[in-house]
């Protein structure tokens, strides 16, 4: 073994890694927000049993869940231009991650909507609220509270899966590290660095999820 590890190397490459980290967080946050919106819209369509659209959502969810994200990403980035829907690296990456997270969020939000007591739905109908108002005024404020921890878990997964975007050349954390490894062969140091960064990000976010879960459970615990 002639490999001399040099952990000062990580510090020397701090700025590059930080840039990658910022891109990772940036892409993840945008995707997570879009995925949340997809989840709420999709779950609403399913709960209201809108014909055709509801079935489309079911198919979308099962399709995304039963195919590898990497292949979805390549289809979006390399396949769609053939039919005139070419997107930039950034756009493709966000689209792939958002569609992926959205599919999981549909089920998360639907779970929350189904947890809304039946009496509330009947009461809403008795008060003359239409299905749209029911979702907006009752299901979202009551049900979303239940699904937020699950949605946050999906958000953590989206963050981790942003590493896939290095495959299409988006300059996020893994991409930055791989580029350095290819040039300077400091494999161990680079992977240790990004490993710790990912671990830190995920653990922080998970801790936050637990706090939030605790906070959101408050009204249900009684005094």
């Amino acid at each position, binding site marked *: 073994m002639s490999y001399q590890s040099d952990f000062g190397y990580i510090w020397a490459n701090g700025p590059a890694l930080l840039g990658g980290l910022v891109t990772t967080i940036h892409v993840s946050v945008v995707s997570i927000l879009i995925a949340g919106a997809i989840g709420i819209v999709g779950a609403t369509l399913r709960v209201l049993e809108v014909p055709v659209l509801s079935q489309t959502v079911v198919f979308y969810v099962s*399709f995304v869940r*039963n*195919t*590898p994200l990497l*292949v979805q990403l390549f289809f979006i980035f390399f396949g769609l231009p053939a039919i005139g829907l070419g997107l930039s690296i950034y756009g493709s990456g966000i689209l792939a991650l958002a569609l992926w997270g959205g599919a*999981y969020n549909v089920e998360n939000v639907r779970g929350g909507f189904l947890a809304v007591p039946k009496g509330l739905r009947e009461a809403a109908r008795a008060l003359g609220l239409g299905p749209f108002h029911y979702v907006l005024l009752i299901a979202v404020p009551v049900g979303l509270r239940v699904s937020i921890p699950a949605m946050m878990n999906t958000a953590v997964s989206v963050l981790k899966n942003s590493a*896939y975007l*290095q495959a299409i050349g988006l300059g996020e954390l893994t991409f930055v590290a791989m580029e350095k490894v290819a040039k300077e062969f400091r494999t161990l140091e680079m*992977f240790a660095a990004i490993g710790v960064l990912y*671990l830190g990000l995920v653990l922080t976010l998970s801790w936050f999820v637990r706090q939030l879960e605790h906070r959101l459970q408050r009204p249900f615990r009684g005094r």
Partner: protein
Amino acid sequence: MQLLLDNLGLFLSGLGWTFRLAVATLLIATVISAIVGTLSVTRSRVVRLIAIVYVEVFRDIPLLVNTLFVYFGAPLLGVPLDPFSAATVSFSLWGGANGAEIVRGGFNAVPHHQRVSAVALGLKPWEIYWYVLAPQALLPMLPPFAGLFTLLVQATSLASLVGVTEFFQVGQIVIERTTITTGQSPAFFVYGGLLVTYYAICSVLTTGTRWLERHIAERTARLPKPARQLIVPGDVRPQESV
């Protein structure tokens, strides 16, 4: 269509490698899960901590980073791995971490009074584990493990990044070759076809998992309800996804 017929052999061999990778990984991951999962329900705090650290590290670092690290990092430790072995090692470590959570959940779902009764009967710890807890924990673990296999099939697509000629990599090769020879990129149809194939395979597996879930739920529903359930909701985190 012509494209598919011309490259049928290639696609089939790719699928073959995908399955070989998924099955090899499942077998090794099961062994790791059994060991680490058991360690995470022992009484020793240090042992539990080791198991938790293992699970957290491999679940929280993206699988892709893990795979690249194993492939490019192994030579530095003096054991260069070929792409297939590197992918197997990396997926097994990841699958083992996820499986360990399933095993832990299975053991935690066994009603507490079973353990207490076994202690009262004077059974030794290994006897409690082997004769009382393991048989009851095993059945509820099967559906999540079937789900894990579906994830592993999907995860194999990552092996293409380190150069295993599995299904996805074959697709990329076909696209490149056709683009060079005909000047037109069939990316849309090939990647679309890959997606449909993965969808077909994984849907069958998912349906199987659902069936297993229902079947086992029916079986366990007939057992008398335990007096006190110690399973904490939210204790078992949702399974990882690829």
